[in-house]
């Protein structure tokens, strides 16, 4: 393996700044890697190729001209295919948007371009971010670089797989019910769901507006922090964007430390349905935190039990409205002929996949007159109770911890026809989305049963994203020290 592709973003950045390697060489190495392995991983729906090389050469030129460049200058970033990008198609993993070239750019990709990052391609995902495996992609299923017969998680499975397969050091994802943390966990990398409103949604095609949160993937905690900081900050184009300083996540990632920190273990996230190997690694991680000086207590968040059903009313309700615009009238697929109504109906029937249709139906029902109070209204009340659970917990501890997802990566096809089993993958991640606070997934070892990675979830109050990185960096440092190498060095899927 070319050593450029195994370097972290931080290392690449330093090497480029020192003139040891050019941005063009870095991008070319990653494009070569994609060409070599992506027929097996299938992480990318679109590879930028010449466009990425042109961006990289531009960075080299600016560097040569002595322009001050940020830490991401010349670093390739893979982009989940629901960020609107000029010059690259944006499909959201759906046939209904196949071939759509947005005439405008998302705030986050604009910021990354401005920071000199090289947008290397668009990654596969479950259609409109609905799913936990990429099996709901309208195009194909991505494969887990640890074991190609397994899913890479989802919905940001393409981004997670790309980073785990060293096709890019960094990637963008979005987290609505766990779509960053779950794939990060099952691919053995780091993924963060920032505080809702901390990262702009402008130009990020909506799944569930009140939940969608763009966030970073990296192979290390520091790399995730670098991308987190570069993509974050107030955006006047997004009314729900928070007008507050970005938490100093890079600084926190450089100074992992849990001494004296109060850590709460969520009681509700254990028991039936949790894979023993996942629980074993989680328990060890908690012991590790204790050994590093954290004060660990158990905390009950009683309403977390209702998070999954509440989520499956709120998110589909918003979906039913957000996805109404895909009707064949203005862009994307147009199918059928005759009246506008017929074209709309036929287009939507042809363009959307089964899971998207299921959620549109669920949401349409939940918002219907006469059912609103019992479903959407009640779910919003549950959401308030979950926020209160978090508030009560954060009155006693600084962070909460849990497994990220109950199991390791499952076999492709295993849950494809069982939506309830699929939904359970997000059991531990959904409360954070409903409450709008921040959480990170950091690798904590391999499950004994299958040798696949498990993740530790750290949850923090809104705008305390830096706390996540302080904890995650301490865990990462101690575990890498224990293992003698990064966890990903044990991934054998592509060997």
């Amino acid at each position, binding site marked *: 393996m070319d050593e450029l592709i195994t370097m972290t973003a931080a290392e690449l950045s330093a090497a480029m700044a020192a003139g040891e390697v050019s941005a063009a060489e870095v991008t070319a190495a990653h494009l070569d890697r994609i060409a070599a392995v992506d027929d097996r991983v299938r992480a990318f729906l679109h590879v930028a190729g010449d466009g990425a090389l042109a961006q990289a050469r531009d960075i080299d030129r600016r560097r040569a001209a002595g322009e001050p460049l940020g830490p991401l200058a010349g670093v390739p970033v893979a982009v989940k295919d629901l960020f609107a990008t000029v010059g690259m198609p944006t499909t959201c993993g759906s046939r209904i948007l196949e071939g759509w070239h947005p*005439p405008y750019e998302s705030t986050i990709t604009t910021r990354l371009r401005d920071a000199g990052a090289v947008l290397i391609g668009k990654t596969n995902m479950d259609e409109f971010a609905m799913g936990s495996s990429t099996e709901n992609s309208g195009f194909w299923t991505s494969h887990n670089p640890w074991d190609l017969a397994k899913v890479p998680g989802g919905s940001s499975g393409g981004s997670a797989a790309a980073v785990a397969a060293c096709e890019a050091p960094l990637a963008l994802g979005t987290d609505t019910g766990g779509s960053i943390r779950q794939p990060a966990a099952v691919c053995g990398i780091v993924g963060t769901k920032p505080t809702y409103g901390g990262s702009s949604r402008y130009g990020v095609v909506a799944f569930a507006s009140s939940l969608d949160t763009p966030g970073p993937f990296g192979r290390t905690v520091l790399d995730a922090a670098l991308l987190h900081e570069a993509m974050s900050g107030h955006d006047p184009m997004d009314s729900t964007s928070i007008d507050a300083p970005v938490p100093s996540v890079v600084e926190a990632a450089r100074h992992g430390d849990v001494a004296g920190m109060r850590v709460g273990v969520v009681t509700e996230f254990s028991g039936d349905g949790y894979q023993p190997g996942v629980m074993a690694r989680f328990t060890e991680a908690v012991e590790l935190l204790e050994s590093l000086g954290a004060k660990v207590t158990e905390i009950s968040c009683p309403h977390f039990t209702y998070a999954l059903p509440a989520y499956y009313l709120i998110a589909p309700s918003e979906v039913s409205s957000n996805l*109404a*615009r895909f009707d064949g009238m*203005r*862009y994307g697929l147009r199918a059928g002929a005759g009246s*506008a109504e017929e074209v709309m109906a036929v287009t939507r029937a042809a363009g959307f996949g089964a899971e998207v249709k299921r959620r549109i139906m669920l949401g349409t029902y939940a918002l219907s007159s006469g059912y609103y109070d019992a479903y959407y209204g009640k779910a919003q009340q549950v959401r308030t109770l979950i926020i209160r659970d978090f508030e009560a917990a954060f009155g006693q501890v600084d962070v909460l911890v849990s497994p990220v997802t109950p199991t390791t990566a499952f076999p492709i096809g295993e849950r494809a026809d069982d939506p309830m089993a699929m939904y359970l993958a997000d059991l531990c991640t959904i409360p954070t989305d409903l409450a709008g606070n921040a959480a990170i997934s950091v690798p904590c070892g391999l499950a004994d049963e299958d040798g696949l990675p498990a993740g530790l979830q750290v949850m923090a109050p809104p705008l305390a994203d830096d706390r996540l990185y302080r904890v995650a960096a301490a865990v990462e440092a101690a575990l890498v020290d224990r293992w003698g190498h990064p966890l990903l060095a044990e991934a054998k899927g592509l060997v």
Partner: protein
Amino acid sequence: MTVTTTVTYESALQRYEPVFGLETHVELGTRTKMFCGCITTFGAEPNTQTCPVCLGLPGSLPVANRVAIEYTIKIGLALNCSIASWCRFARKNYFYPDMPKNFQISQYDEPLCTDGYLDVLVGGKTVRVGIERVHLEEDTGKSLHVGGATGRIQGAEYSLVDYNRAGIPLVEIVTKPVPGTGYLAPEVAKAYVTELRDVLRTLGVSDVRMEEGSLRCDVNTSLSVRGSGAWGTRTETKNVNSLRSVERAVRSEIERQAGVLDAGGRVIQETRHFHEDSGVTTSGRSKEEAQDYRYFPEPDLVPVAPSSDWVEALRVSLPELPSARRARLVESWSLSELEFEALRNAGALEVVEQTVACGASPADARKWWLGELARRANDSGLEVSELPITPAQVARVAALVESGALNDRLARQVIDGVLEGEGTPDEVVAARGLAVVSDDSALLAAIDDAIAANPDVADKVRTGKTAAAGVLVGAVMKATGGKAAAARVKDLILERLS
């Protein structure tokens, strides 16, 4: 087909009591759209005033226009409403090609303004129209259906959509049902829209042009059998695009519904379309199976929470509203309500007030604007305010008459000159030589000539029949080209023949 009998308006009113309500949509005159920065100028090339947000492109997000919220609060205050201290936008979900997102951002159960009223004057009486709510939403695009007979989507060959209008801020003002106006219902409805239009214009929040669609009305009408106390089923009439149509639509629905009820039928709850040419309504879509809009709070926007300081500042900044102005002018100009209405209906309030401000007496100002100038405006198809003469010029003409320098006849010629672009009143007087002849010696010569030419008349006057002097005055006026002051001429004649 429902069986109906033909019923005259008068006979309908003998058996039924009409109840009406109005939903008025007003496009706000903000520079930019409701949720994006696109400009709102009317009449631009189709689809040139659009962006990812108002086109509803995937990933785009709305940001509320603060000025539009401010305008809505002002409207609410002017209509005596309570202003919500916290409210949200909601999504109204339905599919239609001219709605880019297939939902409209509107307000549902949390409108910005609620529970107010507007007093309107009809036939010298004040009628209080209750205001249910005032809320803010975005307009849709505009469809042009080509190839069909009706201009509607049914039967059209194809449709074109212009999204320039999509996202223009729209305020919906909904009245409470208005019962008890009886025979006057159509007039009250029209007077309400007229008064509302004046309020909106005074506030400067909209150009309120019904012909450009910046003010649009839906009229709800129902009939209750007199004495029954129970309200009937209402219909909603759309496409009511002028003040006159508001009146005609209510009237026509009263007649139609009375016909249906008289024939033993029942009124169907439905949307009806008003036809400007025939003055009747025809059935649109039935509302009996009400569409479910699946309203829910718009998650892409944060709640609107106007602070009481802001609302109070807006209240203080409100201009004088038409009702206050009416009270003031009726009082200070000593007008009856009917005289005031005549002035307002002639569209002459503004110019008369300005003319008075330039020194004319209210009576003179009204006389010129409602008389001579109204006639000229009517002849040329203009509003009086559009005539090429300024209130200051009218005040000057009135002053010249007052001082005796002009008589009414000369004054009309001066106005002619001004309207024809010959300059100011003084310039026209000079150029046309229109000053009253005030030199008695010049007049006496003409009087002597007139007496000599009419000896019989002169004799009558000598014998005390002074009314006969009019003939002599007329002769003198003719001889002087109308430049004499008639009263002075008469005095001189009587002196001469005494």
